[in-house]
């Protein structure tokens, strides 16, 4: 299993039956593939619908129906389309149970930076700032490090997407929860030692006595 699948599978386990979920572009999008068949998760797409389904078969794409990353998608029975104001009523208004997003940096206070590297890459925040502020649970799904350098910091150095809104960080090395006391390592991946994950993390990790293995 590659690290991306591992992360996506673990994030999927966080979702509950009936949850309204918004998945960011890239690895977060993969989470939809690993949701248990025993539960129903309702996917919101910020370009204007609830009830996103799978990708269409080749040749069956609808030019009027793409996800927020412009990839062709389908909708499930019981879906609903709306305008962008309504889309963000749903997002900002606290009607999204969980959002899964990637990160450039995330820190021990739950700060997130994922929309720009000054002077280098400025894609813009799109809907991310609203999602992170509005969703009941913010889950970061990302590689633990970038080119060997930690992405989980004591304090973000890049411009923030939002302050103190991240709840959970899932990487290929483990699962970390943002708490008032700092980052708690809840689960550690098979084959990874506590020293290894500490070394790959700039922020201090609180290691609880009941540290579990990350099963995916």
């Amino acid at each position, binding site marked *: 299993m590659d690290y991306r699948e591992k992360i996506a599978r673990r994030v999927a386990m966080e979702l509950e039956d009936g949850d309204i979920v918004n998945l960011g572009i890239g690895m977060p999008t993969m989470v939809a593939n690993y949701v248990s068949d025993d539960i129903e998760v309702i996917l919101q*797409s*910020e*370009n*204007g*619908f609830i009830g996103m389904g799978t990708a269409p078969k080749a040749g069956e794409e*609808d*030019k*009027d*129906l*793409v996800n*927020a*990353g*412009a990839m062709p998608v389908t*909708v499930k029975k019981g879906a609903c*389309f*709306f*305008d*962008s*104001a309504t*889309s*963000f009523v749903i*997002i*900002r208004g606290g009607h999204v149970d969980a959002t899964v997003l990637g990160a450039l940096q995330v820190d021990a206070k739950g*700060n997130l930076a994922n929309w720009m590297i000054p*002077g280098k*890459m*400025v*894609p*813009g*925040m*799109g*809907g*991310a*700032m*609203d999602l992170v*502020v*509005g969703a009941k649970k913010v889950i970061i799904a990302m590689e633990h490090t970038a080119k060997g350098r930690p992405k989980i910091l004591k304090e973000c150095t890049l*411009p*923030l*997407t*939002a*302050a*103190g809104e991240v709840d959970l960080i899932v990487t290929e090395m483990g699962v970390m929860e943002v708490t008032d006391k700092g980052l708690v390592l809840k689960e550690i991946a098979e084959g990874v030692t506590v020293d290894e994950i500490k070394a790959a993390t700039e922020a201090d990790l609180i290691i609880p006595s009941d540290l579990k293995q990350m099963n995916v």
Partner: protein
Amino acid sequence: MSKVVELERVLELVKDGMVVMIGGFLAVGTPETIIDKLVEKGVKDLTIICNDTAFPDKGIGKLVVNKQVKRVITSHIGTNPETGRQMNAGEMEVDLVPQGTLAERIRAAGAGLGGILTPTGIGTVVEEGKEKILVNNKEYLLELPLKADIALLRGSKVDAKGNVWYNNATRNFNPLMATAADVVIVEAEEIVETGDIDANNVVTSGIFVDYIVKEGK
């Protein structure tokens, strides 16, 4: 009286230096025929208000590539490298606005509101230069209305009175922009008889629409 006019007629309305809202999300729900003609015509120094600058060869991106845009107020430019290049080279001004805030600011202009208070952007660079207001001990940013001289929209079905129905994900910013510009032009995928869209299912009332043009081939 029908609002359906020839394309040439509406092109004259878009003038150098104007503030123009353009509907669409990554070019889905964008009036491509009007944009193609604006590229041909070469109208310049536009301020564009839009969700994103789409792709170099699609939607609003074509105006950027053709250097017709002086400033863009948008939430995302990542899919069009030319926007970033022009921004970094100082050739175009880019104001990045969170998507939900962009939607509310346009809506506020259309609704006659003086602004809205949003929690989005608090603790980020987005709050720079903005008034912060405390409500029930929580901080919000005061975000102001965004108006335009002209709005260029796309409807899936449009009747002669300008009532619009949008198919699937084409709706996005179109209904909001319809309320917030002095002149509103809708490019119709299909023009239908008045009454063909059930009055309960009309999304944009014809009262907001000034001109309708048929999508070209």
